[in-house]
């Protein structure tokens, strides 16, 4: 499906979700509660067939976190960005997509390590880079330590 066709299809299929126009990909913004069901549908529905999770990351907007999923289909070659908003900054938690895309195992470990976002039903959630004893989560905007060479302006 082309970018416009995909957008029209998604608007019809998920009327409760919000859409935003990004420069590169269509962007779908999903509530935390409905996220896993929508992700599953996007992957398993033959018309969309998003079988390839090529990037998963998070962004800290100081009041909330967003987990960003970049999806593509090896069959149709259309791309989609799915975003989950996590309003609870003190205890950010969302559903793991490991059961849908195995690539998520390492991506989610990295996000947990650097942002402190927990993923439910993840097979082995651990601090993959910094180790269990590192204080704080470096990619959060309020992180600071004595080694930071260039403090945020």
């Amino acid at each position, binding site marked *: 499906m082309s970018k416009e066709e995909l957008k029209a299809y998604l608007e019809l299929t998920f009327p409760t979700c919000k859409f935003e126009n990004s420069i590169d990909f269509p962007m779908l913004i999903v509530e935390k509660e409905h996220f896993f069901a929508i992700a599953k549908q996007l992957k398993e529905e033959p018309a969309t067939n998003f079988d390839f999770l090529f990037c998963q990351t998070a962004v800290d907007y100081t009041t909330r976190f967003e987990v960003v999923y970049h999806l593509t289909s090896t069959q149709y070659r259309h791309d989609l960005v799915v975003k989950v908003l996590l309003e609870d900054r003190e205890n950010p938690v969302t559903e793991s997509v490991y059961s849908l*895309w195995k690539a998520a195992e390492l991506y989610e470990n990295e996000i947990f390590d650097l942002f402190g976002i927990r993923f439910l039903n993840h097979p082995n959630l651990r601090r*993959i*880079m910094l180790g269990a004893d590192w204080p704080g989560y470096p990619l959060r905007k309020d992180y600071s330590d004595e080694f930071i060479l260039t403090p945020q302006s």
Partner: protein
Amino acid sequence: MEVPNKLIPVEDAPGEFVINVGPQHPSTHGVLRLRVKLDGEQILDIEPHLGYIHRGIEKMSESLGYKQFIYLTSRMDYLSAHMNNQACSLIIEKGLQIEIPERAKVIRLLMIELQRLASHQLWWGSAGLDMGAVSPFFFAFREREQILEIFEETCGTRLTMNYITPGGVMNDLHPTFVKTVKTLIKQFKENIHEYDKLLTGNIIFQKRTQDVGVLSKELAISLGATGPVGRASGISCDVRKLHPYDGYEKLDFKEIVMTKGDSFTRYLVRIEEMKQSMHIIDQLIDNIPEGDCRVKTKAVIRLPEGEYYQRVETARGELGVYIVSDGNKSPYRIKYRTPNFSNLGALQYIAKGSKIGDLVAIMATLDLIIPDIDR
């Protein structure tokens, strides 16, 4: 001392034990630690532990300008420095809607394909070394050294070039560039059959790699494997074909896709890719357009607010750069989707059940670059 009068029963002393491969280990080519659970020689499970060379490049980039953080990307996958620089340059050019001169595009493609050759040559030599064949290393370095000299002449450095910048390339080609590249390609075309003699047709090498570490197509898709690893498992994932950039759409070259997915197939894909890279250089080297090699950009770049994503094909797969901009002079968030990070995910699935010696063969053909994983 009391001597036990009978042997310890088997159920109290299972044959499972855990060893650490790395962080310092010759076959990891860097500081990667693998926690390997073994039953005798057989691998039961692998858990990768990263971070031994984690420099926080993404965090650092949040406080650097758009022209500054590009220099850090040469230190991620240091064998694909040109491609990493190019990915950042392309995303900035997309954000600012700059059209770069044709000459700059051709110079970029030439440099990138030379870099791909150099990277695959180093991989070929070290893959042989990992499996006990010492001579290939010297044969590989014979050509690689010449490519690095070409880089040194034009870019000033041999490894972390920082040559491709937003708006084009840093400076024009060295006057002898065309001549030396032609000599190099002619020589490498004559020499590449030695690669087949030394390793491809070597019965020991074949036995070590054939049917070892088989990655099925379904698993490769699920794991997000790209580059030669994905293409050896039958996924068509060459960004140069799927989402052409900098003029790849005008060139004639084949995407190498094979289906078997074992270590030997990954080896063959890279050998064929070297031939395709030479074919691309052949088309470009006599057709470098005249003109400027870059357009001027502002000293302080500010990307318009929004989200940007750019992907390029490095020597190891798809590199994605994801930038969230809030309109300031440094990116609000930058994420590098690196090919090695995703390809590392395959290791625990394909090495499970094989012997510990095969782990080295699998690691060699996955071609992992650790600084690219840790960032």
